[in-house]
């Protein structure tokens, strides 16, 4: 690595040659104000806030784009620099409506922070007059062009991070505007509602509708957690105020998603209109009636004690936490000797002996083969990574018998029967990457095996915590015939229709542990209300095998309890005390999942 010796404000610094002046200054703890700069995005030098004086340069230079070279002498806070920054700021403030009192983002606005820092206490130039449109057509967020400073962060996020290319810049000069597609409304555009643009916007130009005017940033609490909408396990920050969830942000520090989220993770949990279950329910004289947890657990224990182990069945949805799945295994399988345990979703087969790669490795590959899974619709954040790689020149091959969301981005689309063609092409790649899911056929498995020496791979399991369920062996041997008691661990999963109970004898006692009222709970004899993603401490295992924490942000609705807690109450009632605390259960889970 070549080093460069530079001087910033008289301070001698040795730094890597070729990094930008801004990076060098930050590494040395020297603060340079920025507006269009964002750590996750490329530097474009749009706002001119980061200008510095560099000896020998004709004019002030944007430090975010200027590389350091040996002997460079830089002034970041000279009068010339601060005067110029003030001028830049006065000009930004002179266009559009940057008036704080009626802006949603006041208090967490980077432009406001700069106004305070440089003491903008009146408009030096003319007062704003031109009105720009407010685009409220999007379901989840507002685009208020009057607050826009044209920093282009949203455009870069849409291009560089999500690779969706919906946003762009239209017109010239003071008429410039961020536009969706060919200048159409955001709500009618190719936007996939991932919301990344709202998260990078430095001002109040893009913000969530749901949480608008429900509390400034300083009044809210942020809890780091993990998204449980699919198997990717994106890191989130849950924003709460007064016991209510206001919004969900992507966690920039999270290793899996690095700040990104999709519609499923960022918005849909907040727009869930299903009715919550808030108390245990027991069927008495044909109708479900509210009972206490004590009564519910006692009733369940009594029922379990009256039947033989061979007459008990357990069905688990993959929404359940590591802890709950572990307790199912421990209590039903190991202690009660129940072997009739199944998972509601299919598990993909193992094909390769070597270990899985990480999602981020996709970007290093030259050919990406996706078989029997549809990440664009089912694991959108994984599709962002794939599309990003495609943008950089990687070739995408989609193998699927169904319509696949990634098909339009692929250079080759074949069905399962034609997979040999795809494998032939993949063989020729230097660094191929395979993503496959449970939709893969026997022929396809045999074909993919041919790539075992070369390819990196990830199994894109459907559902949420399928990896943990499969690792604990909960996916084999369920048979509804002859059951007298069926325990269904459903969690937040949406299960319409009653085909789940196909073959279950009519007189069997059905226990459903779920968060929402559904046809499933209508079938049950005993319903246990489960806490949802925001209401519990637990862990999930993602498709890479990472164990990640869900942290409680708000109290559970009504009497609802985390899935694992209910199972622990049951094990205690049955005299099979398994573990005493979440930490202890978690520790055991970690051991058994390794």
């Amino acid at each position: 690595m070549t080093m460069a010796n530079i001087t910033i404000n008289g301070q001698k610094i040795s730094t890597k040659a070729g990094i930008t002046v801004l990076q060098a200054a930050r590494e040395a703890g020297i603060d340079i104000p920025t507006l269009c700069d964002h750590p996750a995005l490329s530097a474009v030098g749009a706002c001119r806030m980061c200008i510095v004086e560099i000896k020998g340069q004709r004019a002030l230079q944007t430090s975010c784009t200027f590389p350091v070279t040996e002997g460079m002498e830089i002034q970041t806070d000279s009068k010339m620099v601060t005067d110029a920054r003030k001028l830049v700021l006065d000009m930004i403030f002179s266009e559009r409506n940057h008036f704080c009192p009626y802006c949603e983002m006041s208090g967490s606005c980077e432009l406001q922070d700069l106004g305070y820092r440089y003491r903008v206490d009146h408009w030096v130039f003319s007062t704003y007059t031109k009105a720009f449109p407010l685009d409220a057509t999007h379901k989840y967020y507002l685009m208020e062009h009057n607050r826009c400073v044209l920093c282009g962060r949203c455009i870069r996020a849409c291009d560089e991070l999500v690779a969706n290319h919906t946003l762009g810049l239209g017109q010239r000069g003071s008429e410039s505007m961020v536009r969706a597609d060919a200048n159409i409304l955001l709500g009618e555009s190719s936007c996939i509602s991932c919301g990344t643009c709202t998260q990078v916007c430095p001002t109040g130009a893009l913000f969530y509708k749901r949480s608008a005017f429900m509390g400034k940033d300083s009044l809210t609490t942020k809890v780091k957690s993990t998204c449980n909408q699919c198997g990717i396990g994106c890191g989130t920050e849950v924003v709460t105020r007064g016991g209510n969830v206001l919004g969900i942000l992507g966690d920039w520090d999270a290793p899996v998603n690095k700040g990104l989220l999709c519609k499923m993770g960022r918005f849909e949990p907040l727009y869930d209109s299903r009715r919550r279950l808030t108390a245990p329910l027991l069927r008495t004289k044909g109708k479900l009636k509210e009972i206490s947890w004590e009564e519910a657990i006692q009733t369940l224990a009594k029922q379990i004690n009256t039947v033989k182990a061979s007459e008990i069945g357990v069905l688990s949805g993959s929404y359940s936490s590591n802890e709950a799945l572990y307790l199912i295994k421990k209590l039903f399988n190991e202690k009660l000797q129940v072997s009739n345990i199944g998972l509601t979703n299919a598990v993909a087969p193992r094909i390769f002996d070597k270990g899985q790669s990480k999602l981020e490795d996709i970007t290093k590959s030259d050919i990406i083969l996706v078989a029997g899974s549809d990440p664009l619709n089912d694991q959108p954040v994984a599709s962002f990574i794939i599309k990003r790689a495609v943008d950089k020149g990687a070739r995408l091959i989609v193998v699927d018998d169904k319509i696949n969301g990634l098909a339009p981005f692929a250079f080759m689309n074949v069905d399962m029967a034609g997979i040999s063609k795809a494998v032939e092409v993949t063989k020729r790649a230097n660094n191929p990457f395979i993503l496959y899911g449970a939709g893969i056929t026997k022929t396809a498995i045999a074909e993919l095996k041919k790539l075992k020496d070369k390819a990196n791979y990830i199994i894109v399991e459907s559902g949420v915590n399928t990896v943990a369920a499969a690792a604990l062996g909960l996916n084999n041997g369920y048979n509804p015939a002859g059951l007298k008691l069926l325990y269904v661990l459903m969690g937040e999963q949406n299960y319409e229709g009653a085909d789940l109970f196909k073959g279950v004898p009519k007189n069997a006692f059905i226990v459903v542990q779920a968060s929402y009222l559904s046809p499933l709970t209508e079938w049950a004899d005993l319903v246990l209300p489960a806490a949802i993603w925001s209401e519990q401490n637990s862990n999930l295992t993602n498709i890479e095998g990472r164990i990640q924490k869900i942290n409680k942000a708000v109290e559970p609705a009504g009497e609802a309890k985390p899935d694992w807690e209910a199972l622990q109450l049951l094990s205690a009632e049955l005299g099979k005390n398994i573990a005493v605390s979440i930490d202890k259960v978690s520790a055991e889970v970690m051991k058994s999942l390794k």
Partner: protein
Amino acid sequence: MAKVRIATDWLAGCAGCHMSLLDIDERIVKLSELVEFTSSPITDLKHPPKEGVTVGILEGAICNTHNIEVAKQMRERCDILIAVGDCATFGGIPAMRNLVGTDAALKRAYIETESTVDGVIPDSDELGKPLDMVVGVDKVVKVDLFIPGCPPRADAFYYALTELLAGRTPVILPPELFTYD
């Protein structure tokens, strides 16, 4: 020592800044040992005395010809002019009118409002004429100190006045008192 004389007035504002000035609470007693509040919208004397005052305080934006007259008179009769609040410093809420235009705003307010029947836009020689543009006070007279805020914190008023009384200029508001909302 003679008391320092202060005059205040409001333009296109909501009186909120004056309320915030009164929010300095009991400190106003201490302050009035050192200063004399002459004219203000909330005292009997409405115009700054001809012989002049040391400090003039203006709240509100410039939105009509009357506002210009009041601002000019205050400027002529004071040594130090302070623009207080977001309307006087930036144009504030009244400046939202600029986005639709004065004619459209008047028409909407006096004629098209859902609750109005046979409305007319007031037009009298006694009234100031609305301007095409709503602007901050500094666009018509020279301003010596800006205290933004909606309203400025009571502590900001107190801080600025005590600094001036101590002869410390220019007044630099501490960060916690420099706010836009």
